[in-house]
C-alpha cells in the first residue's frame, strides 16, 4: 500500500486539476450560450437571403450568373478544390477536432488539386505536417466569430473563385444538432447549386407576380450572392464555435466527474492506509507495554 503522504499529494493534485476542468466547463458553457444567441440573431438575415435567391431563380430560371457556372469542362483530376476547415484553436474538446480532420482527409483523398484554408490553430498544425497546400496568408482564429471576419474570408474565396484559381469551394465545420449532439459536416459553398434553393415547380396556369430587378438582374445577384456566401460562412463559424464550446463543455464535465470518482477512490485508500497505520501503532504500543510488564 502506498504511503499516506503520497496518497495525500495525489488527492491534492487531482483536486487542483478538477478546479481547472470545472472552471473550463463553466467558461465553455457561458461562451456557448453567447454563441447560440449570436446564431439566433443572424438567422433571419440568412434565411431571408436564401429565400431571395430562390425567389429570383424562380422568376428568372434562365438567369446565368458566374456563381452558378459549374465549369464542367475541367476534368476531375485538374479541378482546383478549396476547403475551409474550421477547427478549434486548442484541444481538450473531446473528439471535436478529430472528427473535422477525418472528414477533411476524406475530401483530400478525392481526385483534384487541393488547397486548404484553415481556421483554427490546431488544424493548421495538423495539416502543416501532412504536406497539403495551405494558404499561409489565411490566418484567422475561431474565437468570437464576427461578420467582419466572415467578410474577409469570403472576400478571399470569391476573389480566387472568380479568377479561376479555385473551381469548387467546400466548408468543413461542425453543426450543432441539439445541445447534446453535434456532427461534422461538409457544405459546398461555390458554385451555388440551384437545387439547394428548392425551386418550386409552379403550375403553368397560375398567375405569377413579376418582379423587376433594378438596375439589372446581374447587379442584384452581384449584391446578393457575395452576401449570401458571407452569411453562410458566418453561420458556419458561429455554429462551429458553439459546437466547439459544447464539445469542450462535455469533455470538461466528464473530466470533472472522473476526477470526483478518482478522489473518492483515493480517499478510501487514504483512510484505509491511515487506519492501518493507527492500528499498527496501537499494536506496537500494546506489545511494548506487555513486554515491559513481564
Amino acid at each position, binding site marked *: 500500500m502506498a504511503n499516506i503522504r503520497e496518497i495525500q499529494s495525489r488527492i491534492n493534485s487531482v483536486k487542483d486539476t478538477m478546479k481547472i476542468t470545472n472552471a473550463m466547463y463553466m467558461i465553455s458553457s457561458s461562451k456557448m450560450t453567447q454563441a447560440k444567441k*449570436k446564431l439566433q*440573431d*443572424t438567422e*433571419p*438575415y440568412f434565411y*431571408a*437571403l436564401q429565400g*431571395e435567391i430562390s*425567389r*429570383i431563380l424562380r422568376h428568372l430560371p434562365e438567369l446565368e450568373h458566374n456563381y452558378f457556372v459549374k465549369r464542367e469542362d475541367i476534368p476531375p483530376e485538374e479541378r482546383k478544390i478549396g476547403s475551409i476547415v474550421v477547427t478549434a484553436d486548442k484541444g481538450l474538446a473531446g473528439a471535436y477536432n478529430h472528427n473535422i480532420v477525418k472528414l477533411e482527409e476524406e475530401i483530400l483523398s478525392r481526385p483534384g488539386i487541393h488547397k486548404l484554408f484553415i481556421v483554427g490553430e490546431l488544424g493548421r498544425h495538423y495539416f502543416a505536417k501532412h504536406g497539403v497546400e495551405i494558404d499561409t496568408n489565411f490566418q484567422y482564429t475561431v474565437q468570437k466569430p464576427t*461578420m467582419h471576419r466572415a*467578410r*474577409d474570408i469570403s*472576400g*478571399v474565396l470569391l*476573389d480566387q473563385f472568380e479568377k479561376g484559381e479555385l473551381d469548387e469551394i467546400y466548408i468543413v465545420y461542425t453543426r450543432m444538432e441539439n445541445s447534446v449532439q453535434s456532427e461534422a459536416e461538409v457544405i459546398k459553398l461555390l458554385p451555388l447549386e440551384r437545387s439547394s434553393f428548392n425551386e418550386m415547380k409552379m403550375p403553368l396556369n397560375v398567375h405569377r*407576380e*413579376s*418582379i*423587376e*430587378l*433594378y*438596375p439589372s438582374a446581374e*447587379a*442584384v445577384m*452581384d*449584391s*446578393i450572392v457575395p*452576401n449570401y456566401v*458571407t*452569411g453562410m460562412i*458566418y453561420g458556419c463559424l458561429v455554429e462551429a464555435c458553439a459546437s466547439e464550446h459544447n464539445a469542450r463543455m462535455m469533455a470538461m464535465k466528464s473530466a470533472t466527474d472522473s476526477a470526483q470518482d478518482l478522489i473518492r477512490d483515493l480517499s478510501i485508500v487514504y483512510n484505509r492506509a491511515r487506519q492501518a497505520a493507527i492500528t499498527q501503532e496501537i499494536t506496537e504500543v500494546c506489545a511494548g507495554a506487555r513486554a515491559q510488564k513481564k
Partner: protein
Amino acid sequence: MDTFGLKIIASDKVFYEGRCRKLIIPAPDGQKGILPNHENMVIAIVVGTAKVQLAGEDDWRDLAVGTGFAEIVNNRVTLLVDTAERPEDIDVRRAQEQQERAEEQMRQKQSIQEYYHTQASLARAMNRLRVAQDKKWNL
C-alpha cells in the same frame, strides 16, 4: 395616408419592423424613393444613407446602411443589408479611426482585392460619420 410594411434586417439582428410612409434608399446609380403600392421590384443597395418616414410621423429619420438589397412585393418592403445603424448608435470616434486606418491603407501598395476591401471600408466609415452628424432617430 397610405402606408406600407417595412422590415429592415441587418446581418446581426432584425433592425426594424413596422409600418412606413416613405422610404429613400441608396441604389447604385443614386437615391431611389419608395412610396406605398410600389411596383414589385428588387433593388440593389450600396453603402449610404437611407431615409424613412415612419407611419404617423412627419419628420425623416436617417440610418446608415451597408450593401444589400431591397425587395418590394405586394406593398411589403424588406430591406436586407449587412449593417444598419441609427445615428446615435454610431461611435463617431471609432468611425473616425476606421476612416483614418482605411486612408492609411489606401496610400500603401495593395493588391486589387485589398484595394476594393479598403475602399469599401472607407465608404462605410465615411457614411457612418455622415449619418452621425445629426442625431435624430429615436425609436
